[in-house]
């Protein structure tokens, strides 16, 4: 029997109060998430249980950390930050690869009452700058190999008081920087955890939109209630599981379900420093006896391409439950996983803003391959007409909307109240995705309702890419769109009109591609560039990005005068 038991019964009888009760939430000494991840597990007698199994990138070293070590190393980070003068509510950025310090510092930042701002370690200077500047981040915790990117932008970030390198060992710190070694020194047995309440800000995750710079979705400590129960019921995590979430905590999946949810349950989780590598991934499942696997459609489709033979070379019999997130999971992938692993991947849907899974396929519930599943118990979802914002009939395409009020819902876009307000209409939160709902209540993803590009499960804003492109000396005009891709759902495609004197050849193409990668990140880097003599424009002179996108998707665009306002 799964944790959720019957979805239909939970749909009728669940309210958030039950999750609070399971967590003994109302009697807890603090609502600080860090307490529930570390202290509470030790108090429950799980101090000696392994919290984290970590394998290095080379695959030749594995380290196991218990919940007691998580508590102590979290304390060490919290003490360090407090001694540094970090005040509650200040933003502390974690800019690291998936090393154990990332996880300990996350706990430490929350213990100190600061707001954790994890950023993907593949971000380069411009992407990093935009997010640190907007958040007025006061401290950044990083690694030797990444510190150079911070140094190159530090002069432009007056709020950034502290640059902390966590893996420098005994080496002398550069002027204006600090070194911290969590493993050195005496264990910090006691730390006075910041007395957060449910509405105290906890985590700030940046997400991309069609226009303007990325927006910081601010979450609060009370999110734990929803992250706990969704991890229990959707991911079906149990006491004896070895759980593996392949997401990087630079993105919301990596914190909600790569840190908070599973550790609130007292589960053992696996972290591989390494990114996607089929052989190493299968070897890890076999070696660490992974039971619950939470991954992304892009990875699953790449594993499909690798075929079934590689699977046969490994003993994957430990696997019990598979879940997917980040982009719609195509039916072929669900069917393939059932054939090859003997288990279907269960698709789940949610966003940076929602903080937790909101629509999903549940263990025990019939899967309709290709469907997103049904709303989480106690959540109200609907598909709304794009003009009237009223629910549409079954089978009609509309906007996915959720009735606000669940604990993990974001509380604001950082310093951007207008955009935050625009996400709510008629008492609904509008997700920005289009879908249909069928007669049985299953949701079916159709596409984004904006120009945001979903590549390999990462959302990338076209504005950010176009701005970077325009800084290249050869680029006169540019437009970035999502081009459909069989593996990544979409890849970034850039349309470019060159300035006179530049050749539209592969050399220029490569130069522009690498230019964007160095400025933003590999995920924002165009995977394809098409040179154009001139760009299609509206009468007011605006580039018609949607027309270019329609060309890629084969969508009928009709009367282009309707694009005047794009």
């Amino acid at each position, binding site marked *: 029997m799964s944790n959720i038991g019957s979805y239909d019964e939970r749909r009728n009888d669940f309210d958030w109060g039950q999750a609070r009760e399971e967590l003994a939430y109302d009697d807890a000494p603090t609502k600080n998430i860090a307490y529930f991840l570390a202290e509470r597990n030790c108090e429950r007698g799980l101090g000696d249980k392994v919290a984290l199994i970590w394998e290095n*990138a*080379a*695959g030749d070293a594995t380290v196991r950390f218990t919940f007691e070590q998580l508590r102590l190393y979290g304390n060490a980070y919290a003490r360090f930050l407090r001694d540094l003068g970090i005040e509650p509510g200040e933003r502390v950025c974690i800019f690291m*690869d998936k090393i154990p310090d990332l996880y300990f510092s996350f706990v430490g930042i929350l213990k100190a009452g600061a707001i954790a701002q994890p950023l993907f370690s*593949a971000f380069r200077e411009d992407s990093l700058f935009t997010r640190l500047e907007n958040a007025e981040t006061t401290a950044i915790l990083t690694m*030797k*190999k*990444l510190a*150079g*990117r911070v140094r190159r932008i530090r002069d432009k970030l007056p709020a950034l008081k502290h640059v902390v390198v966590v893996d420098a060992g005994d080496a002398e710190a550069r002027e204006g920087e600090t070194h911290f070694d969590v493993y050195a020194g005496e264990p910090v047995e006691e730390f006075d955890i910041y007395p957060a309440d449910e509405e105290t800000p906890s985590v700030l995750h940046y997400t991309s939109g069609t226009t303007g710079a990325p927006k910081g979705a601010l979450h609060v400590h009370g999110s734990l209630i929803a992250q706990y129960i969704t991890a229990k019921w959707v991911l079906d995590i149990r006491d004896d599981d070895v759980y593996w979430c392949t997401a990087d905590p630079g993105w919301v999946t990596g914190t909600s379900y790569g840190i908070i949810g599973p550790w609130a349950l007292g589960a053992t989780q696996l972290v591989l*420093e*390494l*990114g*996607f*590598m*089929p*052989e*190493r991934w299968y070897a890890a499942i076999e070696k660490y006896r992974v039971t619950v696997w939470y991954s992304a459609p892009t990875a699953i489709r790449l594993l499909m*391409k690798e075929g079934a033979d590689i699977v046969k070379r490994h003993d994957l019999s430990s696997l019990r439950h598979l879940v997917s997130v980040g982009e719609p999971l195509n039916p072929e992938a669900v069917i393939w996983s059932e054939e090859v692993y003997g288990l279907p991947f269960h698709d789940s849907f949610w966003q940076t803003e929602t903080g937790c899974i909101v629509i999903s396929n549940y263990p025990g519930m019939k899967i309709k391959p290709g469907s997103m599943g049904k709303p989480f118990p106690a959540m109200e979802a609907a598909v709304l007409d794009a003009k009237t914002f009223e629910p549409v009939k079954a089978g009609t395409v509309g906007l996915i909307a959720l009735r606000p009020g669940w604990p993990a819902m974001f509380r604001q876009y950082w310093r951007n109240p207008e955009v935050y307000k625009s996400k709510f209409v008629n008492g609904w939160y509008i997700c920005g995705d289009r879908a249909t709902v069928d007669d049985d209540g299953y949701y079916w993803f159709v596409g984004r309702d904006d120009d945001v590009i979903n590549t*390999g499960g990462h959302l990338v804003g076209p504005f950010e890419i176009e701005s970077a492109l325009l800084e290249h000396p050869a680029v006169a005009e540019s437009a970035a769109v999502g081009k459909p891709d069989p593996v990544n759902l979409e890849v970034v495609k850039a349309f470019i009109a060159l300035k006179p004197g530049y050749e539209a050849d*592969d*050399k220029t*193409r*490569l130069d522009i*591609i*690498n230019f964007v*990668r*160095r400025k933003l990140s*590999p*995920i924002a*880097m165009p*995977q*394809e560039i098409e040179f154009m003599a001139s760009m299609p424009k509206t009468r007011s002179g605006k580039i018609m990005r949607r027309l270019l996108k329609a060309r890629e998707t084969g969508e009928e665009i009709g009367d282009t005068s309707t694009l005047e306002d794009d």
Partner: protein
Amino acid sequence: MADELKDKIREYVVDEYVEEGEEIEVKDDTPLISGGLVDSFSMVSLKLFLETEYKIKIPDEKATAETFDTVNAIAALVREYADA
């Protein structure tokens, strides 16, 4: 000739992926993708570099994390398509 090819690939990888001040030695068998130096999204630019530099065409299905994982593997791939 073989060494020139590897040197050229190494030079590109170091220029594009090794950060200023970073002490990473890229040897012929240094794992680039599985070692975390080059990300899988960047394979597109690496492939385009090889195709432009050596006037070859590498099929998309050949551009995998394994075939691009070391200077040795990349050089072997270039040779395979240069000879084709």
